[in-house]
């Protein structure tokens, strides 16, 4: 594989950049693999990369129904953070933060990681207390957290509404300075390119239509491009998890819901932090191109449609304008939707299943993108070693029946309520 470097950039300039290697190949499926990963999104690609890199398992195929990076890894709002209260989430995400910091070098691909910091705004004394508690929990887990008062927040984001007559006045906020954003497509492409170079087959336009399971053990999968034998199969399909689970006669603590995001027209740099509204569900950051990237609530009913509906968008943007009135002056450039695998406690599942050789990675709710490297790393470990790593031990499938829920937000099992 050609390394991406200033030297190769100059060298290829002499041939009008027409002789670069393909970033990844387009192989036909082989008859058999050691591991088949279903789902060529961020998590699937990262899993294949870490299987090859950390566990030297390279007879691996990624099976993708559409094209790689066309699902949620291309549809998110690119926020990366580890500002969780519970140990399981905090330690897992902070491990991921470390992988994010090294990712561009590790993948030889500029993922434009920008640790600009995230501020969760508080709008009451009670919320300030809750944030102080969460901040302390974060610091105990080695995650950076700073509690800001109203004046400190005003200094950082003066464009927010600090007037006296607002419905939800800003009392302060909780900041994680090391949080930030990254270029989502680059993450998918970077993992794909490295995985491909180590021998992983990335097979696109290939739909999984069934599984070969006998006496509690997986033997392979049936696809639109033929049968593929596999010793181990990993499911990494986010919002399509329930569809594949049905083919395995499994019913999971997951519901599929629609989440929208949108960007405004590009404007001059105005916001150098990720900011979330604390009296509802709205978040905003500014992309490198200058667009305001915004998102918030689910559409609120089970959906497999990768497109949104206007009432939710209007509701979300009303919150945005309450927080930062200048947003009302911007024209909307694009809106889009993705389908989320909403788990019943708001935390993910990375685990073995009752079928030998079948592994499950799902339940990412609103936070799949930031988890990409840590999810791939721990899922690769779980598949390669046939046992969970201590980082994903809490993300077990049976925690629902044993009562060991990780209910970060304490919202209960109505997954559409945020």
């Amino acid at each position, binding site marked *: 594989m050609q390394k991406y470097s200033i030297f190769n950039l100059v060298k290829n300039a002499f041939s009008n950049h027409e002789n670069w290697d393909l970033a990844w190949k387009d192989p036909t499926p082989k008859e058999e693999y050691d591991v088949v990963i279903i789902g060529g999104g961020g998590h699937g690609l990262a899993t294949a990369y870490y299987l090859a890199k950390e566990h030297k398992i390279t007879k691996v195929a990624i099976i993708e129904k559409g094209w790689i990076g066309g699902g949620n890894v291309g549809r998110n709002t690119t926020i990366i953070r580890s500002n969780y209260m519970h140990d399981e989430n905090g330690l897992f995400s902070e491990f991921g933060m470390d992988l994010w910091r090294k990712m561009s070098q590790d993948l030889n691909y500029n993922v434009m990681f920008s640790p600009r910091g995230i501020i969760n705004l508080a709008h009451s004394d009670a919320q300030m207390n809750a944030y102080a508690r969460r901040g302390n929990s974060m610091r105990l887990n080695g995650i950076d957290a700073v509690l800001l008062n109203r004046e400190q927040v005003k200094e950082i984001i003066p464009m927010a509404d600090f007037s006296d007559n607002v419905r939800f006045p800003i009392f302060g906020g909780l900041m994680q300075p090391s949080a930030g954003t990254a270029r989502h497509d680059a993450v998918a492409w970077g993992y794909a390119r490295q995985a491909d170079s180590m021998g992983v087959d990335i097979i696109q336009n290939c739909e999984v239509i069934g599984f070969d399971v006998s006496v509690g053990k997986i033997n392979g999968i049936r696809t639109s491009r033929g049968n593929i034998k596999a010793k181990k199969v990993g499911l990494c399909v986010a919002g399509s998890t329930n569809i594949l689970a049905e083919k395995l006669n499994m019913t999971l603590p997951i*519901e599929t819901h629609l989440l929208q995001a949108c960007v405004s027209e590009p404007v001059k740099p105005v916001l150098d932090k990720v900011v979330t509204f604390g009296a509802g569900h709205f978040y905003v950051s500014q992309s490198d191109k200058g667009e305001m990237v915004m998102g918030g609530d689910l559409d609120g009913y089970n959906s497999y449609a990768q497109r949104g509906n206007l009432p939710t968008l209007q509701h979300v943007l009303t919150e945005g304008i309450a927080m930062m009135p200048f947003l009302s002056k911007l024209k909307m450039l694009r809106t889009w939707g993705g389908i989320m695998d909403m788990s019943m406690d708001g935390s993910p599942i990375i685990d073995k299943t009752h079928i030998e050789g079948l592994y499950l990675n799902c339940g990412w709710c609103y936070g799949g993108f930031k988890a990409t490297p840590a999810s791939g790393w721990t899922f690769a470990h779980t598949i390669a070693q046939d046992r969970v790593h201590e980082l994903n031990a809490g993300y077990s499938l049976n925690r629902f029946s044993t009562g060991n829920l990780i209910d970060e937000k304490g919202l209960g099992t109505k997954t559409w309520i945020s």
Partner: protein
Amino acid sequence: MLYINCPHCGMRSQNEFSYGGDASVKRPELNKEVSDQEWDDFVYNRKSLRGKHLELWQHISGCRQWIKVERDTATHEIFRTFKADEDVA
């Protein structure tokens, strides 16, 4: 915008309704031994079908009645609506 035909009030916009989830989930019968599996299936496990899905909605800004709606989760098309105690054939 979804338009839901409330069996009590007629066609209204989705803004008047709030969602109540999968209507096919049944609470285990009272005064009967309930296995862990049955309880998990009631509280946590969902089929989350792609296609026709029977679900509960409440006409919260209207008659405040709970109703059942048969809707396609891929196209958002609404086929039929029922009163909460109506049997769905």
